[in-house]
């Protein structure tokens, strides 16, 4: 039996899933794809859109007010105390950096793994990466206390003969996060060029034509341009891949190079990376489900895509669960009473509520994704993705607050809760993130047009007689 016959036989049975599911539904032509996605940019701005934008912008504005208040008065307006010197500031920083991981994973690592389903989701995931890293930078700068002196973090020759402390992991953060931001932005922009050129040719308004024209850097779509483009894209994917691992590894070192029980443990780097991908996918899922519904992109973001993302969330959720268990096991195995005590305290102490929220959301809730029906149920995955977002925030909070709040001497024990200022700043970062995302969804092609065209049936060359494309 030839392969084609075999495929047909598989498809013939209605109870059988085909071996490879189609990634674009309704077999559109190349023109259809362009028209569908470009029409989002061309369509008129609706009242609903403006209203949503106003809500998110107000959130951002309120956050900026709280941020201004912090800068004006000082960090004393936060709930930080001795011994809990890090609270929501660093929790939110790590949270946002984590969110920023799915984009680069999808665009770089899945690209290197030739996962064709990435094409429908990479553009918006990368955009989220950039916006999330911006939020993270806001958090970490405000926590320095005197953010107007941020340039002291950079090693430059100066008349004060002041030099940064290269032995501090906080310093490494500056380099890691900035590198990540720069490369992610470049990667995103390079990927956008052919699509911006498409828009340049498509839009009617003169202003829009000029703006997209400038941004598309004179892209002609010639064979030569494509050749260079593909090489640049591949190189950037190669550079971004180690960055996906390095950024959160460096962030984890903020904790692990210290000798605090609960912070200092060797598994932290890969554990943080897995957690970051986990939380990043959850955030991409939450927003993508809304985008898919509102902009009606079900043709491109199919249930197969969502299914795959749910699988990744299940897998990374289990990795995070593995790390939790390793920490617990080794805390017991090490025979170190401090280690043991910190972990018992985490699970049963003052912050037990945070710990169990984390475990329930991160380890227990994704387990429902073992069932295919649930992996393809939009309401369930929406709820679970929000659970995971919550759980991953609590993971960072648990690590930071529980390890700090009971110092070695009982005299220096404390409890930390945030003030309205910290909560407002956190709400504000959500405002910034969502506002930028809304603007992106309106003015930039939310789906990589040229890449989706590349996975349409028949677009890839096949060997010999196997001309009937199987997606």
């Amino acid at each position: 039996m030839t392969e084609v016959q075999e495929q047909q036989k598989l498809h013939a049975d209605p109870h059988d899933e085909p071996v490879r599911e189609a990634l674009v539904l309704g077999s559109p032509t190349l023109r259809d794809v362009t028209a569908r996605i470009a029409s989002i940019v061309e369509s008129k701005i609706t009242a609903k859109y403006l209203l949503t934008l106003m809500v998110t912008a107000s959130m951002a504005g309120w956050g900026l007010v709280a941020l201004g208040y912090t800068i004006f008065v000082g960090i004393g307006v936060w709930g930080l105390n001795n011994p809990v010197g890090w609270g929501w500031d660093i929790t939110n920083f790590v949270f946002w950096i984590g969110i920023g991981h799915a984009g680069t994973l999808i665009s770089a690592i899945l690209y290197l793994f030739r996962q064709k389903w990435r094409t429908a989701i990479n553009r918006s995931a990368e955009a989220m990466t950039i916006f999330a890293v911006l939020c993270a930078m806001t958090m970490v700068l405000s926590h320095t206390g005197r953010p107007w002196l941020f340039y002291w973090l950079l090693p430059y020759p100066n008349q004060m003969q002041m030099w940064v402390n290269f032995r501090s992991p906080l310093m490494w953060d500056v380099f890691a996060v900035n590198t990540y931001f720069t490369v992610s932005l470049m990667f995103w922009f390079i990927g956008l060029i052919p699509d911006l050129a498409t828009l340049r040719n498509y839009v009617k308004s003169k202003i829009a034509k000029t703006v997209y024209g400038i941004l598309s850097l004179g892209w002609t779509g010639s064979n030569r341009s494509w050749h260079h483009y593909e090489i640049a894209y591949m190189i950037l994917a190669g550079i971004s891949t180690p960055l996906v691992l390095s950024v959160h590894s460096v962030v984890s070192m903020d904790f692990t190079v210290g000798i605090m029980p609960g912070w200092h443990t060797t598994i932290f780097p890969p554990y943080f990376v897995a957690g970051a991908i986990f939380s990043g996918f959850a955030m991409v899922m939450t927003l993508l489900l809304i985008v898919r519904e509102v902009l009606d992109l079900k043709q491109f973001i199919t249930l197969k895509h969502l299914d795959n993302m749910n699988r990744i969330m299940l897998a990374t959720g289990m990795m995070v669960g593995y790390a939790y268990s390793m920490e617990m096991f080794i805390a017991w195995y090490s025979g170190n009473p401090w280690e043991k005590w910190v972990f018992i305290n985490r699970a049963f102490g003052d912050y037990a509520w945070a710990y169990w929220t984390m475990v329930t959301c991160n380890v227990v809730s994704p387990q429902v994704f073992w069932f295919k029906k649930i992996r393809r149920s939009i309401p369930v995955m929406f709820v679970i993705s929000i659970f995971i977002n919550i759980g991953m925030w609590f993971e960072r909070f648990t690590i930071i607050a529980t390890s700090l709040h009971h110092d070695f001497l009982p005299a220096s024990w404390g409890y930390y809760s945030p003030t309205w200022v910290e909560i407002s700043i956190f709400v504000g970062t959500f405002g910034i993130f969502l506002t930028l995302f809304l603007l992106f969804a309106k003015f930039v092609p939310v789906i990589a047009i040229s890449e989706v065209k590349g996975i349409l049936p028949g677009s890839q060359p096949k060997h010999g007689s196997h001309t009937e494309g199987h997606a």
Partner: protein
Amino acid sequence: MTSVNLGSTPLIAKMQKVGFALIVLGALGLAAVFITGGQERFFADYLLGFWFFTGISVTMLFFSALQYLTRAGWSVSVRRTAENFTGMVPYVALFAAPIIYNLFSHHSIYEWSHESAATDHLLVAKSGYLNTTFFIVRIGIYCLLWFGMLRFLVGNSVKQDSNASDITPTRKNWKRAAPWVIVYALSITFCSFDLLMSLEPHWFSTMWGVYTFAGHFVASISVLALMTIWLYKAGLLRQYITSEQFHDLGKLMFAFSSFWAYIAFSQYFIIWYANLPEETIYFEFRMHNQWEIWGYILIVSHFVAPFIVLLRQDVKRKMNFLIAGAVIVLFSHFVDLAWIIIPAVSKVAAANSGEQFTMGWQELTGWLFFAGVFLLLAVQNYKKRSAVPIGDPLLQESVHYNS
């Protein structure tokens, strides 16, 4: 399509001969170590060879499970090669028996099994986990789990050969690969705690499972690449293997030798920076007494050399470069495990009988013995079944894809 049985080809016959020779050589070497080097060193070398090849065999199962889990198309034509190198899995318990025997002797390489452990405060605290009964039970559990994994995954994979039109066996593997991956992750972690980490029972690292996994995985890919190249060079399976498979195996070798470096560096760096006595003891000991040279070799051979050799795109499609990469990686994996096991046992041996040792030819003996076993059991599999999963629904995709 018809089954591709390579059992009677000259390559497999040669493998069998080499396998026998290695077993004889290794056994003689081990005997020589037993007589001249003392029991501790003998068991250390035995453990080194045993875990090198058991780790690879079990990881080959994981590789197969991973291909099913991700519905990978590219790897179908080389997947059976991985499945054939799992021959040691049913016999792990048998080969582990000497290590368990050793636990009860005065020359035990595991300090926690000594009588003196009863007076060591920390070892008493850990005795709930580190005791002989529980150790044996755990090894037994790993053996059962791995055997179950072998029967299920490879069993279904082979069943698929006989009937290409009914893909029920492949479906079963697609469906159940994920739980087996979890079984693998937990068993390889705890087994590496038991066999390796507990050689220095005062020391601990949460990274240990990930660290040993990274080594086994890149070593398994290297074995897979070497065997695929040998088959190809012998003129076999040429209609199934293309330069695409070589390219992909090369990419995985490159990626995971870097992954190993990432994990190894993170573990070292965190322990070095924090400088807590109970943790640094592990590296402190290995940075002196002539052990340090092997640490430096590891940096170069497990990371720098494979990185440079395999970085370029075109070399991953050139067999001689791939062979060089794979040999470097396998050498590094050996040094890695030796750097874990031998210094620890030398410390124990010094305490037992006052005899300390450094690396020497002796360390190769266990490896040679198990290399022979590993090859022979793979030969058995090549004789038994088709060398390509001819009934697999994704085989054509594997043969025809173009990256």
